[in-house]
Each structure stands twice: as C-alpha cells, then as structure tokens.
C-alpha cells in the first residue's frame, strides 16, 4: 500500500493502492512519491551539463597543449566534441540509481572508463605532457572518489566501519534532502535546540504559491537497510501524529525564528502533512517506504 497520503490537488495520488499514477510501466518511484519525470529530468540535465563542461574542458586543454600552446579552430572543435560526448554520457548515465554502479555490469563499466583514462595518462606522460597525464589520472580515479558512498563493491563497509552514529544519521538526512531537492521541494529549517524533532521538513508549492505538498521526514541509517522508528522517552514513537504535533508545538516556541516559522507552517497546514521515512544502508543505498509508519 502506498504510505504517501497523497496530494489533494492530484486525485490519482490519493489512491492508497496505486503506484506511480497507475502507470508503473513508464514511471519509476524510488521514493514512493515521485515519478520518473519529476526525478530524473532535472538530474539528467544537471549531470549532462556538468559532465559536458568537464568534457569540453578536457578536449580544449588537451588540444591546446598538443598544439604547442596555441589556440586554433581545432581547439574549439575538440572542446565541442568533448562537451557533446560528456553531455550525452552525463544525461544518460547520471540519473541511474547508485545500485546500477554496484551491481551487474556497473562495476565493469566503471573499471573500463577508469582504464581508458589511466591509459590516456600513461600515453600523455610518455609524450612529455606531465600536466595532461595528471589530468587523465584524476579522471581515472574520479568515479571512485566522487561516488565512494554508492560504490559499495569497492568500499565495502566504509560507512559502517568509519562513521560515528551521528555521521551515519547525517548521511540519511543528506540522502533525503537530495531526493526532495531533485523533485523541486524546498527544505525548511526544523532542528530544535535540543537536537530533537524531525530530520527534515520539505515543502513544494504550486505555481500560484499555494502548498502542493508538505512532508515531515525522518531519516535512518541501518547496516542491513532495515530500520525501526525509535520510541522517545516522553514523546511517544517517532513519526506518530502525537510526536509530530508535540514537535510542531516545540518548533513554534523556538528561539530560532526560522524554526518557529517552519513550525507555524506545519501548524497551519496540519491536515495536509505527509510523513516519509528513508533508510540508508551500509552500502550507501537509500530506500524509501521500507519502514512501517505509526497508524494514522
């Protein structure tokens, strides 16, 4: 059953047993809330642009150096080719879920890309271009450095063995914040001075400025991916409505005006609040809707 309470402006989302607007064939829903269109278009364009930028930079710098440090049409041409190839790679590969790189052919693909860059580094070095060799060497290790949290096969147990409990919690919160940001949600400040309260509050607005969705989120870390909501000493179970109300009340009285404002927004829109929990496992994989929420 879909734990998402739904969006009152979109009746299809209110159905408790519907998945992806009743169109699972063309929609993918890792969060339980979002369609592929919402999640991956912005990710694809974003990663396409960033990969494209580095592709263009690489093409331009390499040609410039091989050209005897002279600018020319071939520099511009290779920059354009590098940019186009980089954009295409980023556009199609960027939105893939982390598991695509850690399972099946994913690790082999990464190893291949890394090998090509490493080979380039050796060739540049032998040709007397030490600076380009360093650049290629950086490209060879970049995939592993930049995605070390997701690349469980290469960094098995990294999170479990090296981070503190607080650090693990932060990883869960960061994963939630990224997912909501990708889907166009704004993150609101909600941390109480006691360091209690929900891990995240996210809001999405309609074009006319009215609230489309308002989500209270709790983030968990569990080595095996199976987490439980905690029982607090005096406020009941996390994410129960009693707990949420008590936290809204505390937020409104906060000395931090931003937190108080978030509390008031939740207070004034109490009847449309949705609840979400995400869990990050020791491989860095983030999952939604695996934790049973307290009864409505």
């Amino acid at each position, binding site marked *: 059953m879909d734990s998402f309470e739904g969006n009152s402006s979109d009746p299809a989302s209110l159905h408790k047993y519907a998945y992806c607007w009743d169109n699972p064939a063309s929609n993918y829903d890792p969060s339980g809330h979002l369609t592929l269109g919402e999640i991956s278009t912005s990710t694809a364009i974003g990663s396409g642009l960033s990969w494209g930028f580095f592709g263009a930079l690489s093409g331009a710098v390499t040609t410039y150096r091989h050209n005897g440090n002279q600018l020319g049409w071939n520099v511009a041409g290779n920059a354009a080719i590098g940019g186009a190839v980089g954009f295409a790679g980023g556009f199609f590969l960027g939105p893939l879920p982390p598991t695509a790189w850690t399972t099946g052919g994913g690790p082999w693909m990464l190893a291949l890309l890394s090998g090509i860059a490493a080979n380039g580094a050796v060739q540049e070095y032998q040709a007397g271009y030490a600076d380009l060799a360093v650049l290629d060497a950086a490209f060879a290790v970049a995939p592993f450095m930049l995605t070390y949290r997701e690349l469980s096969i290469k960094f098995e147990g990294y999170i479990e063995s090296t981070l503190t409990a607080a650090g693990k919690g932060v990883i869960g919160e960061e994963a939630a914040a990224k997912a909501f940001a990708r889907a166009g949600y704004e993150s609101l400040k909600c941390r109480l001075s006691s360091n209690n309260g929900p891990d995240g509050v996210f809001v999405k607005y309609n074009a006319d400025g009215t609230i489309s969705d308002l989500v209270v989120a709790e983030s968990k870390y569990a080595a095996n991916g199976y987490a439980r909501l905690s029982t607090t000493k005096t406020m009941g179970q996390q994410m*129960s*409505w009693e707990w949420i*109300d008590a936290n809204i*009340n505390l937020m409104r*009285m906060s*000395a931090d005006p931003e937190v108080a404002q978030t509390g*008031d927004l939740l207070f004034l829109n109490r*009847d449309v609040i949705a609840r979400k929990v995400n869990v990050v496992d020791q491989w860095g994989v983030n999952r939604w809707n695996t934790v049973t929420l*307290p009864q409505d």
Partner: protein
Amino acid sequence: MSKIISRLDRIEKMEREGIIKLRSDAEKGALNSVANLWALSLRNLAIIDFVKKNDVIAFRSQMREASLLKLGLFDRFDKGEKVAASYVSLLSYKFLFMALAAGDLDLAKKLASKIGGRPVDCEDRLSRFDITFGSALKFFVLDDKELMEVWAKKLAELHPAETISGLSGYIEVFQNYLNNNQQGVVAGFSEIIKGHKKLSVGKNIFANTMDELVCVWGLGMMNLLRARGYKIQSNDSLIPEILVV
C-alpha cells in the same frame, strides 16, 4: 538561548492567529486531525493569558477546553471514527495534568478512565517511563490505591537510564501519598520544583516551552492532593498560589 518570556508576544500572536485556522479546519471536517494540536495551542494560551494578564479564569477555561478536546478524541476513537492511534495512548497523561491544573477533577477522572490498556501503549510505542508514570497517575486520579501502588512501584524501580531524574519529585509524592505521609508529600513538592527548574534549562524537556513559566504538572498534582484533603501550599512562583484550587 533566550528564555521563552522574551518571545512571548511573538508566540501569543502566532497562537491567536493559528487557533482561528484550526477552528476553521475543524469545522470543515478535519477535527480529528487538528484537535490535538489545537489543545496544545490552548494550553500555551492559558499560560500566556495568566502570565501577561494574571487572568486565572482564562487559564482554567483554556486548560479545561484543551482536556475536553483530548477527551473528544478518545470518544470518537472508541466510536470507530478515524483518529490516529497515538492520540489515544497513555501519553495522554499529560492532558490529565491540564484537567487537574484547571481544577476540574471530574473531567480528569473521565479522561483517566479512558486512557491506558490499549495496544498503542505497548513498549514498542511508548517508553517504560511513559507507561509507568502515566499508569500511576491514571490510578492516582481514579483514586485506585491498589493499582496506583503497582505502577508507582514499577516506576520507582526503573533503571536510571529509563527515567528522568528531574521528575523524581513526582515519584516521591506518589510513594508518600500511598504511605499517607503528609510530610513526605510536602518534601516531594520541593523536589518537584527543584527538578522542574533543572528541566527548564539547556536541552531538557521543559526548556523552551511554556513550562518555563508555570509548572503545570506540579499545579495539577497540588490541586489533586488538596482535593484529597492534603494541606499543602505553594511556596514558589512556578506554582502560583492564585492558580491553586
């Protein structure tokens, strides 16, 4: 961190404006979603009205109204209406204190008879502290000494990590009441005030809440004990004598 008194005006404005919205939501059919939050808001306003205007009547009527909203949630849950299970848990002992602080013992008894013994109270959902403290208070209000003793004993036997040291005064009062020890009850109140002050600073449970201004739990406890014939008086502004029934 500034004390809550320094931002009372801002909070009052928020509460008065917010409560209008919740009332409107309730009229449109969302009563079961907003009633609990509405009750918490009334509790805040009760304290604000007392602190700013010395308005005892407003304090009592809003504390009473907050307890009635909670009682309504229990009634509608029992009738099968869609009410979140967590709203009818033993945690509602906090609303017992509101009814007692309002000086309405009958309302407190009605609420006490509703709370406890539900699946949502199991240890998976509530802490052992909330279960034992809530149960001891419930039977205290219902004047059932036998069951109160059972739960007060369990409460006193909790591991220090499971309890809250700043609330030990309440446990002391429970035990001395059960032993008919008037002096012990009075001493317990000193502990309640001392603990309350400790819990009103830093990251403790009453810090940055209206409880910095009035010790509602202590006031409720004092009203209950006075109704049971105990001669106790408040000697601290956290339990203003004018609010004691």
